[in-house]
Each structure stands twice: as C-alpha cells, then as structure tokens.
C-alpha cells in the first residue's frame, strides 16, 4: 500500500516536471526557481544547471544538457538505478543493488566528488 502511494507520487512528480521543463526554458522564465547561493554569493552551487539540463534533454540536445552540469549527468545513472529499488518490489536484486551501491564508501566517494566538483566548477567556470 505504501509502495503504491510512492508510485503515484513519483508518477505525478515526473509528469509535472516533464511538462514544466518542456514548456518553459529555465534560463528564460522567472517561474523556475533560481539558486539561492548563486544569488547571494555569485558562486554556483553543485546543483546549478540541472534545470537547464532537463530542458535540453527534453528538447533532444543531450550533449548540451550534459554541459550544464557534468556532475549531475555522472550521478544520474547511479541515482536512477538506486531509486528504482524503492519502486520495484523487494527482491534479491533490489537487496543486491542496495548492498553494493549504497555503502559507506559510496557515501564518502559522493561527498568527496561533490566538494571537488563544487570547487572545480567555480574555479574553471564549468
């Protein structure tokens, strides 16, 4: 029952997000949320560019999409695989995925890459 509710929530969120990011270009419309950190400090946060990434992905420009946030592009497959284990019925596969992908080393690696990306993108203008 809980899983069913999660499915509905995810489906609604995905449809809404696809519609919004197909209909509006985040760099043109003021409807799309802007980064608080960028507004306050002038430095990009590690998530900056993901909205433009969706927009370009939905409009068939995958390479341009990736260029807005390389880190999010790298992270997307990992997140999708891991998130799918919460939607799929529990099985030895979902257990295996979580045991091997959601470990403390994954958490440490993610934290290290996140900070590295944060510095690099602001230093190199990525």
């Amino acid at each position, binding site marked *: 029952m809980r899983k069913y509710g999660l499915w509905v929530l995810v489906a609604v969120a995905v449809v809404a997000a696809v519609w919004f990011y197909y209909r509006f270009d985040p760099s043109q419309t003021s409807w799309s*949320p*802007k980064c608080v950190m960028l507004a306050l400090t002038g430095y990009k946060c590690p*998530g900056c560019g993901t909205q433009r990434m969706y927009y370009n992905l939905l409009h068939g420009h995958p390479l341009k999409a990736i260029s807005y946030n390389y880190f999010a592009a790298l*992270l997307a497959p990992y997140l999708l695989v891991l998130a799918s284990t919460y939607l799929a019925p529990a099985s030895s596969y979902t257990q295996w995925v979580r045991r091997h992908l959601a470990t*403390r080393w994954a958490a440490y690696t993610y*934290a290290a890459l996140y900070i590295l990306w944060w510095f690099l993108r602001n230093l190199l203008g990525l």
Partner: protein
Amino acid sequence: MYYYINSAGQQAGPVQANQLAANGVTGDTLVWKAGMSQWTKAAEVAELQPFFFQQPRPNYQPNYQPQNQGYQPQAQAYQPQNQAYQPQNTGYQPQPQNTGMIQKKPDNNMVWAVVCTICCCIPLGAYSIYCAAQVDSAFRKGDYAIAEDWSRKAKKWATWGIVLGLIANVLYMIIYGAEAFSQFS
C-alpha cells in the same frame, strides 16, 4: 588461592587464579580468597582481570553469525560440565537479539540524501550523507540498534531537506513568477 561457587551453588576450591576458568568459573561467578571482605564476581576482582576481562563484542558478520548461537566456542570448551550454569554468563554473551538469526543491514537511505544535496538543501543533505555512512560503520561493529538509528536519521534529515527545499522553491515560483506575470500582462 581462590574459592568459588560452583554450578551446583556450593563452595568449591581452593584453586590457583589461573586455574579458575578451567574449573568452570566465569566472569559472573562469585569468588573469594583470604583477605577479601566478601564474595565478588570474578570479573570484578582486580587480580583476576587478565583471566576474566570483559571481551569486546565480537565482530559479527552475517555469514558467520549462525555459528555463535548464544555462547562462544571457547567458553563451551572450558566448561563442558557446566551447561546449566551458562545462561548466567551475560558478560560473555552477545546481545540476545543477535543470537541465532542473520542480521540484515539497514538501508542507509543515501539516495534521498543525494537528491537532497543536489537540488534542495545542502546542509541537511550533507548531514544525511554523514548519517548514511555511519550505518555501515555501526553495522560492521555489530551495533545493530545504532545502525538502525543512523538509518532513521539519514532518512529523516534527507526528507526534511527535500520538503523544505520544495516548499522554498514553490514559494519562489509563486512570488517571482506571479510578479513577472503581472508585469507581463
């Protein structure tokens, strides 16, 4: 030379300190020697500490756990005649909930923490990532309850971060979007 209370509840001995364990004495057995004011648990006698130190909790890996059904192999080897006495050896034994069943590692919920750090709330997401990493560490030490606790914390703070981030974004959309819309029309 120590006297001790044997499994039948009777005084026995005397034996040398280093022979106590071989006679079925455990850390919880009452012992006494001349000069001591009263009968004391062996583990609490300073001189006997080397023989009855509280063993650190073993590092249970799920795959070898089933072998340790409640008492440790060497304790069994020391006291084959004292089976009835063993349930008192709480100092040596793993936590009751750990015995005989394979523990499942709790989900570290790091997927929500990742989502939180990338699009919602960096500070709460970062703390949630930290909690997620602690789940593994606690589990490997055999602290299952603590691992469960970190797992809950990771989920809780990531969820709060995502909810707060969504609220903030929706507010932003309403305020700035409506403003732009009113200028436009």
